[in-house]
């Protein structure tokens, strides 16, 4: 356990030439805890659940690639918008002369099973984040950083997509923190609640939830938009991981340790 360094000693140790300081081991061998076991396990379970939800969600969408607003919507009504793709139902007027095979049975089973995995994992993660100080320590930004000037600067800097520095691997920057908070506390709750609002039994027990979203079809449409935002998040997230050094960052999320000697320069 001696290879875990106290936080205060990290920065002085991070010399570029990798020279040993004092009696501590050479920098090339220094490995430290970056992500806790809970964060790593919940991260990958969420990844698994999200990918299953995405694939099955697309399959379900193909059976009716039309979106509406309000309570009702069907092929006899004008959609808000629709996708000009082939459908897995002959009753949908797509303009294509063929119907795709129906995949809704297993897609619905797996969609809901994955949703349970996502929700239960999310509950563990949020409880951990609150009670173990993960949110406070690693995700909540400093109040001072939230001034319009600093925010604008951080956004401008982020949009340059510069390769992050080595030290940045030890914590999240302002934009990262705000993005993760948005995903955890806004997008995931919205996608879960809009999903539940499509359940007739859930609506019977909690009618105010579907009412908040403006109706059953509105909830379905918002569910779709929330999923699009989450996919955009996933793409940018993976892109940033590549930019920062795929092996080190993914390695840290698997083993929990950040191997500094392998950090890209």
């Amino acid at each position, binding site marked *: 356990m001696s290879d875990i360094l106290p936080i205060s000693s990290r920065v002085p140790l991070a010399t570029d030439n990798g020279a040993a300081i004092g009696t501590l081991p050479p920098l090339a061998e220094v490995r430290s805890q970056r992500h806790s076991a809970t964060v790593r396990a919940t991260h990958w379970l969420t990844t698994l659940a999200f990918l299953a939800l995405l694939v099955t969600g697309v399959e*379900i*969408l193909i*059976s*009716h690639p*039309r979106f509406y607003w309000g*309570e*009702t*919507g*069907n*092929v*006899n*009504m004008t959609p808000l918008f629709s996708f000009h793709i082939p459908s897995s*139902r002959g*009753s949908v007027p797509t303009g294509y002369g063929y119907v795709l095979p129906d995949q*809704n*049975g*297993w897609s*619905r*089973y*797996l969609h*809901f*099973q*994955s*949703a*349970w*995995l996502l929700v239960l994992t999310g509950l563990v993660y949020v409880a951990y984040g609150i009670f173990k100080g993960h949110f406070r320590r690693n995700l909540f930004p400093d109040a001072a950083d939230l001034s319009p000037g600093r925010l604008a600067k951080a956004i401008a800097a982020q949009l340059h997509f510069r390769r992050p520095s080595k030290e940045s691997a030890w914590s999240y920057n302002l934009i990262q923190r705000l993005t993760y908070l948005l995903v955890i506390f806004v997008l995931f709750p919205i996608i879960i609640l809009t999903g539940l609002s*499509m*359940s*007739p*039994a*859930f*609506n*019977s*027990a*909690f*009618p105010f939830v*579907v009412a908040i979203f403006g109706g*059953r*079809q509105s909830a*379905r449409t918002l569910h779709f938009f929330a999923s699009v935002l989450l996919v955009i998040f996933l793409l940018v997230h993976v892109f940033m991981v590549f930019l920062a050094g795929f092996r080190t960052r993914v390695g840290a999320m698997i083993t929990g340790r950040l191997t500094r000697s392998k950090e890209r320069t």
Partner: protein
Amino acid sequence: MNKLTRRKLIMTGLATAAGAGGLAVAAKLAARYGLIPPDAGGLYGAGETLTYAAQRLLTRHSMAREFAPNQISTNPFANPVDPLGDEFKHLQTGGFMDWRLSVDGMAAHPASFSLTELKTFPSHTQITMNGCEEGWTYIAEWTGVPLSHVLNLVGALPEVRYVVYRSFQTDWWDSLDMADALHPQTLLCLGMNGRELPVEFGGPLRMRVPRQLGYKNVKYITKLTLTDSLKSFGKGLGSASPEGGYAWYAGI
């Protein structure tokens, strides 16, 4: 590290035993309180059981949303059905006067009713949504006899746990647990929007379960069977839906 490993091993062993024991107890309790769906086996059984158990605990007595008359869809849609055959056509020509709904199984007085008889029973009207698992919806006013009334009439035995219903579409049969079978909004539906139930929407007689999706609302109902077990029906999964890959419980 060795000491820690041994302690860890013992703790992990104890936790696993406690977890397995807890799961076994939970499974027994769930089965006793009717929280395990008939299609609980297989790859998606865990998710399906969680969904069904959670919804049963939360929705046993909840009422499906009812809407205002001005929210009734002017353009409802019904999925087309395969041709129903000569016998159906013959009945249709006769204005469905010879249509019978038979009720058998665990009943003190198994019976068979004509549509005329059903229409003399207390009727219930509701404006509720019908939603398809594909994602589309419409709202209509539905009129029919509460299924619970017919179950009382035939003297359903206390052991009954499911009502199996069959239809003119022989490949489309289903079943309800008692929470939905006895629910006041569950209807043997005879009318829609103030008229006889149109054939395309399931007329002359359709199961109407507004707390579940459209595919549970089987059209052209001819027979109810009261039972305490679904094992002897089809493949034992509770309905034709799981045999075709769809969940038995369609409250979601």
